[in-house]
Structures are given as C-alpha cells and as structure tokens.
C-alpha cells in the first residue's frame, strides 16, 4: 500500500487523474468534461463558488455518484469506483465538511467504527486500535489522545480525528472538503501545519474551498471551477487573489468593500449589562454592554459559540434575558416580543437563514412578506392581497437581483446566495433604522459576499445603525467601524477599526490579550 514514491518526481504517474468527468443531473450539467491531476505529495486546491461543481466532482471520485462520462485513474491504473468502499480500497479518503463522529464515544472507538479490530471470540480489541491511533497521531504530529471522548474535544481536534479515521484506513490521497469553514483563525493555522506534515509523509491532498486567502497560503496548484467546467489551473506564485476571484466569478469582483468614514449619530441600540442563558441553561451572555449609533457598523467578532447567537436573539426578542436592559431608539424593549421590536424599524438577517429566515417550502412571494403580510397593502383586514404580494415580489426580485425563474419558486430551490438575497430584500424593503446582521455571508460565494457587503454599507450610509455579528474576521475587518470582540459571553474589548489589526482581533477572539496576557 505504501509503496508510493517517497518524493514527488515528474517521472512517476500522477497518483490520481480524472479524465473528462461529466456528471449530468436531470436538467443540470454539474460537471462538464473535467480533467484534474493530483501529483504525489501535492496539495491541489479546488476552488470555486457554491454550485460550481466541486462537491459533485469529489462525490464522483469518492464513489457516491457514478459519472455520466469520463475515467478515473489511480497510480497509473484505470479505477472503477462504484461506492465509497472502492475509493477507500484505492487509498482515497474524504474528510467531510460536517464531521461524522459520535460524541459519547472515544477517539479510538470512533476511528475503529466499521473496521473494528477484534480479539479471538469477537471481542473488540481497543488496545490494539488505540495503539495504532497513537502511532498515526505521532507520525503526523496530530496530537490526539486516543482515549479522549469526542464531546470533550474542540472542533479543530475533532477534525484531526476525522483525518486519523482516514489515515487509519491507509489512505494516501486525502480529500478535504471545505476544511476551514468551521475553524477559528488559530485552528486554521494549526490545520495548515498538519497538512504540511501530511505532505512530508507522502500524502497527497485535494483541498476544496472557496476562500482565496487559504488557497494562496497552502496550495501547490490551484484549479478553478465555474459552472461545472475547469476555468483554469495555476500556481500561487503566478496569480493573485484578485485574478483568482475573477476566474471564479467570471467577472471583475472587488474584494475589499469601498467604505467612507462612518458618520456616527445618535445611539439606535443600547445594550446594558445584559445577561442571557444558553439552551442548556448555562450563562451564555454575561454582562454585555455596548451601543450602536446611527450611521455606523458595530462589528461583533468572535469564534462561533461565544454567546453571539444568544446576544442577537435577546436583542431581537427571540430569547428572554435574565438581567440587563436593551434600548432601541430610546424605547426599552427588554424582553419585548419579536414583532414589537421589528415594528420599531429593526431589520434582522438571522444567523440560520434556512431555519429562521425563510420558510423553505414557501415560494419566494410568501417569503418576501414573512413579517409584513398583515399590513397594508398586503392585507385588507384578514384578507391577503395576492396581487400586491406578487408585484411586490417581482419588484424586489429585480431590485435585489435574486436569480430565480419565477417568484413562485420555492425558497428551498434557490442557491444559498439567492436565499440570502431574498432575506436581505425583505428586511431592506421595510423602513429600518437598525439592522442586525448575524453571519450574513456564511457559506456564500465571493460574488454574493460582495453584493451583500455593498448593501449593508449602503444601509449604513443611509444612516441606519448596523450590528454586524460575524465569526469571519475578514468580514469584520472589511465592514465594521468599531469592533467589539466577544469571548466566553463577554465583550473583551471594543476597538476602532482603523486603529486595529487583524492579528490583534484574532488574538482577542482566542481570549488572549496581546499586551497583558489572559484577562
């Protein structure tokens, strides 16, 4: 199995070669004649927007889909991959974006699941498995304790367990599907170290992502997909983020939002000493205070799960607080109903767009009036005015460039970017003086991000106050006028955006104070 060339030489055949892969779904050409080669010991980044066909291509490679046309060659031999087991037998392993681990089991138990080592009599041989996990962990510098329970591990370590699972099955071709989506900036750095060590040990890696910075930082070669086709293959030394973005999107994209200085008027939102409990009843927000003024964007930076979700829910009336005060436009709205708060002129782009922001089974028309359906002109008394709703929807779809064949298409059938645009259109079409945007561009592609950032800045320039909550440091740096860093339920610092650096905020997000150490 491990007779693969120790060092990448051009003489050996590529470890993996996709030739002319085409995958058709009814009405959709997901992959169109794609060629891709992976040399031994190489990190090959597969870059593309959502829906560009990256995941379909990897699912073909992993045996989850059968290609309509094309061939897969592994180490110079034609491979017939009909199911994931075939791929695993060929040494191909995949680490999915969403982990497939069982929290109450240990690392070893999770790793051995499906190929359990047994002793005579069919008893599990945990010791032998644990020994191998330890060896793999040491060999690749993964630093994972085989006896630890998954539920006690951080997301970054859980990801390394997923990598061990694949290595345990003797894979030497690793597919990482959007591996950084769930990681903090520090964890991303650690992952890159792990990747380096894997490469040193002769593993070859396909790295799927839509983040340009990472590609430039880690890849040996970059292949860009757009609309199911290969647009080009390049190496980081010969390209720039800007030109990669252009390749991905097919037109010029501005990566940095143009921004004028904030005007900063009267406070529209004031939060004083707010305490909120999380789902499990433990304190999630512990004494948070801040202000958002008209015409400014306050960015709340923080790693997911440090109380931002609960904070936003408490401010928008979706969660009761245990102490403290929320004032919007000089009205005390602590624990008011969501409707009372919305009616004050608050727009809310929720963190979970498919669960809270949209009714997926509703057509676009209904989603666009989700919180105004009971008002003129959409309703007369209790009667809905479908005509008004339809023309309203047609207008917004055009104005906000929602790509949909019709306003009657169900929200579930739109791409993530277009779903988000439906929400933005709905919230921005109401008169609002405070916008609360939680993770507004999570999982969106470059083009959508550019658009939504532009719209948020526009709202600010119309003198709305904006509370932007994001775990994407880039987003906070690009948009915020002031940056509040949230860590373990507290706001550890509020910094003026122009006088702070990415690194400084990144450290604060990890709970480290640059000058004084831990607070």
């Amino acid at each position, binding site marked *: 199995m491990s007779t693969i060339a120790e060092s990448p030489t051009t003489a050996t055949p590529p470890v993996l070669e996709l030739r002319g892969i085409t995958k058709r*779904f*009814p009405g959709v050409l997901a992959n169109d004649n794609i060629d891709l080669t992976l040399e031994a010991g190489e990190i090959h980044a597969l870059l593309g*927007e*959502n*829906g*560009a066909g990256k995941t379909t291509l990897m699912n073909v490679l992993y045996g989850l889909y059968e290609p309509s046309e094309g061939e897969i060659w592994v180490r110079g031999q034609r491979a017939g991959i009909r199911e994931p087991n075939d791929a695993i037998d060929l040494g191909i392993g995949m680490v999915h974006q969403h982990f497939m681990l069982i929290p109450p089991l240990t690392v070893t138990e999770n790793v051995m699941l499906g190929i359990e080592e047994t002793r005579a009599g069919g008893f599990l041989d945990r010791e032998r498995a644990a020994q191998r996990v330890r060896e793999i962990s040491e060999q690749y510098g993964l630093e994972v304790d085989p006896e630890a329970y998954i539920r006690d591990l951080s997301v970054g370590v859980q990801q390394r367990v997923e990598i061990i699972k694949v290595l345990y099955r003797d894979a030497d071709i690793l597919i990482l599907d959007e591996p950084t989506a769930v990681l903090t900036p520090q964890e991303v750095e650690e992952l890159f170290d792990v990747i380096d060590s894997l490469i040193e040990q002769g593993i070859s890696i396909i790295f799927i992502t839509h983040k340009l910075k990472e590609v430039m930082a880690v890849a040996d070669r970059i292949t860009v997909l*757009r609309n*199911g086709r290969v647009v080009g293959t390049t190496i980081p030394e010969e390209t720039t983020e800007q030109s990669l973005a252009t390749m991905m*999107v*097919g037109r010029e994209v501005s990566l940095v939002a143009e921004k004028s200085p904030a005007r900063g008027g009267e406070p529209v939102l004031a939060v004083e000493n707010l305490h909120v409990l999380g789902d499990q009843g433990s304190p999630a927000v512990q004494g948070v205070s801040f202000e958002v003024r008209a015409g400014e964007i306050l960015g709340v930076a923080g790693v997911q799960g440090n109380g931002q979700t609960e904070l936003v829910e408490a401010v*928008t009336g*979706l969660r009761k607080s245990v102490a403290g005060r929320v004032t919007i436009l000089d009205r005390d709205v602590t624990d008011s*109903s*969501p*409707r*009372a708060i*919305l009616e004050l002129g608050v727009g*809310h782009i*929720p963190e*979970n767009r498919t*669960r*809270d*922001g*949209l*009714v*997926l*089974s*509703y*057509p676009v028309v209904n989603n666009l009036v*989700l*919180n105004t*359906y009971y008002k003129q002109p959409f*309703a007369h008394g*209790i*009667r*809905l005015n*479908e*005509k008004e709703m*339809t*023309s309203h929807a*047609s207008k917004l*779809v055009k104005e906000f460039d929602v*790509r*949909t*064949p*019709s*306003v*009657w*298409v*169900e929200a*579930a*059938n*739109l*791409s993530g*970017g*277009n779903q988000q645009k439906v929400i933005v259109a709905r919230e921005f079409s109401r008169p609002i003086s405070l916008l609360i945007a939680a993770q507004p561009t999570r999982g969106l*592609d*470059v*083009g*959508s991000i550019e658009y939504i950032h532009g719209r948020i800045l526009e709202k600010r320039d119309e003198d709305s106050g904006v509370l932007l909550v994001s775990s994407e440091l880039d987003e906070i740096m690009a948009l915020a006028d002031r940056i509040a860093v949230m860590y373990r339920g507290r706001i550890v610092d509020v910094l003026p955006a122009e006088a702070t650096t990415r690194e400084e905020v990144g450290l604060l997000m990890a709970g480290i104070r640059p000058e004084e150490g831990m607070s």
Partner: protein
Amino acid sequence: MSQASTADQVPPPAPSSAAPERDWAATLQTVLLPLLAIFTALVIGAIVIVVSDPEVLRLYRGFFDAPGEALRASAASVTRAYGALMAGSIGSPGEVVRGFATWGQTGDGAALVTSLAPLSESLVATVPLIFASLAVALGFRCGLFNIGAEGQLLIGALASVWVGYAVTGLPWIIHMPLAVLAGALAGAIWAAIPGYLKARTGAHEVITTIMMNWIAIRLVDWLINGPMERPGAAAKTREILATSYLPQFSSDPRVRFHAGFFLALAAAAFVYWFLFKTTWGFEIRTVGASPDAAEYSGMNISRNFVVAMGLSGALAGLAGTAQVLGVTHFLAAGFSPGFGFDSIALALLGKSHPAGVVLAALLFGTLRAGATKMQSLAQIPVDIIAILQALIIMFVAAPAMIRWIYRIGAERAVGEQVFTRGWGAS
C-alpha cells in the same frame, strides 16, 4: 439559464389567478400516484377475496387438472364482490336513467328514489368524514396532530342534540342554525383545551387529545344513561325537534341524503379560503411549516396553536352535528364508528388539502356504504373493505412503493433542485 432572463423582465404582476408555474410532470404525479395506489389496493383486495372464498380455494387444489375452472371461478368471485360494492355504493346508472324517464313520463318517482338510494347512502357516509378530516388537515397545517377529532365530534353531537331537544319554541330558521353553531362551538372549546395546554405548558397535543377523547366518550356515556337519557329507553337521548333537522330531500327512509353534505362542501371551501387567502391562515401555515421562521417573523405561536386547535375542533364538532341533525336525530351509544380516527388517515390521503380531503372522504364514504351491500349480496365480509382502506392508505403514505411497482421516476429531491448556479454567470 433562459428562464432567468424572463424573471429579469417580469411583466406587470400576473393576475391573482396566477397559478404558480408548476412542473407539469409533478402535477401529473400528484394525481397519478393516488389513483395507482387505489388501483393497486383493488388488485390486492381481489387476491384477498379469492383466497377467502372457500369454494374457489377448493378449485385451486385441483388447479393442474382444470386450471381454467379455478381461474374462471376466481374472476367470477372478484366480479361478484366488486360488482356488489359498486351496486351498493353507486347503484346502477341504467336504473337511474330509467328512474328519471319514468318520473318524467308518469310523475312516479318511486323507481328514481330506489335507484338513487345507494348513491345517497354513500354521500351520507361521506359527510362526517369530510368534516372530521378537514379538522385533522387543518391541524396538520399548523403542525398539530389532532388525534382528538373523535372526542370533539362526540361533544359537538352532544351540544347539538341538547339544543335540538331542550330548546323549544323556535322556528326552523333559527333553531337549526343554533343547533349547528352549538356543535361547532362545543367542538372548538373541547379542542382548544389541548391547544391551550400546548401553548402554555408544552404538553404534547397527541397525549392530551387522546385523553380528551376518553373524557368525551365517558362523558357522553354517562349523560345518555343519566341526565340526558330518554325516558323509557336506555343509552340514548331524546329525539331532537323537527325544527332543528338538517333538511332531507326525500321522505323515503332509504334516501337519507341531507343538507349536511352541502354544509360539508361549504366548510371545505371555507377552510381553503381561510388557509390560503387570509393572514390567519398564512400564520397557521407558517407555524406549521417552520415554527422558527414564524417566531422570527413575529408571529405568536401560542395563539396560533389555540386558534388552529379551536377551528379544528369546530370542524370536528360539525361532523357530529351533521350526523345527529341530519341522520340519527338523537345521540346513542356507539354513535360514531370511528369517524374521528378514519379522518386522520383521510387527511393524510388528501395531503391536508381541502380538495384532496373531500375526494378522500368521498372514496371512503363510498367504500363504507358499499361494504354493507357487498356483505349481503356477495357474502363477502365487510372486513375486506377495511383491508382495502388500509392498503390504500399504506400505498399513499409510501409512494416509493407505487413508484417502484410502476417504475415511475422519483421526484427530484427538493434540496438538489437548484435553479440558479453561481453568480453573475450567464
């Protein structure tokens, strides 16, 4: 995508009749699949009929000596059974035509009435089913599983009967509507209790409605054997006054068809209008489709639970009301043969859509009415009908089976049906 360009230049708002641009294949499938389910159920039912006929089974033992005979007997047995089912539920179209002819020529309506009796019975059996399954369907739309339709219809019947015999001296034009309203209101209150409990305490409506069913059943038992017992008779209430009757259309006791049927159709139309054309219905459907999104949008979920349960209970109550005011004219033990429970299956069968629910209720009402005839004419046990009903529900609930049997391609999974790909790409 060529479609995208049409969306860019949206013409002036489509008229309100603007049916969503739907996939024709999908529409065809929604109609085709239930029909195939019914057909498949009838085929399997035929097999059951054959194997439950001892005479035919005896012929099969000698199958290889005389295969033709066994097959002929099977065919005859099935034809006899389904023929009797038809005759019992729909009647003979020829006789109806002849009946009309006689009536037209001689003015003698007796033949016509006789010929229409089976159809009338089917419609009579359908009425409570329509009401009760509308009740369950409305609950489903709000994400509520109202298993309490049975109890609610008993309470509705109870209230209507009481108003029917205890309130005297009113003209029909007031008394009948009053009795109807009483039934709806009583059902609404009975169902609003679980709705309120859910909104207030989170008590699951499946549990509470089942409990309420038992309370209703025992309450009715006690009342009809105690305070409301008809003097000189056991386990039934007094007859309601004629001023509270839902009008019937024939004096012939074989034709019990009554105005409740039109009331049921009106209720279906109302439910459609309410669910799809009003803000209240919009809220109820939103709460049902996505409670999180409903809450985010500022809808009051608790209130919607109470409103939806109340309305659902009113409809279920009317099922009982229509039955006492239109058919039995009193309330007795064993009043409902399980309308409330059948209605759960019917709401599913009708995909919780008022039109679908009416069709499903018609189908089951027809089967139920025909079953009696099938038993008496063809000596086929009524249980065959229960088997047929179960098979139909099973096949409708598991469309994958029907797709597999008839090799119908699967619907495209909703999540994968992405119309727009990429951004700014042509």
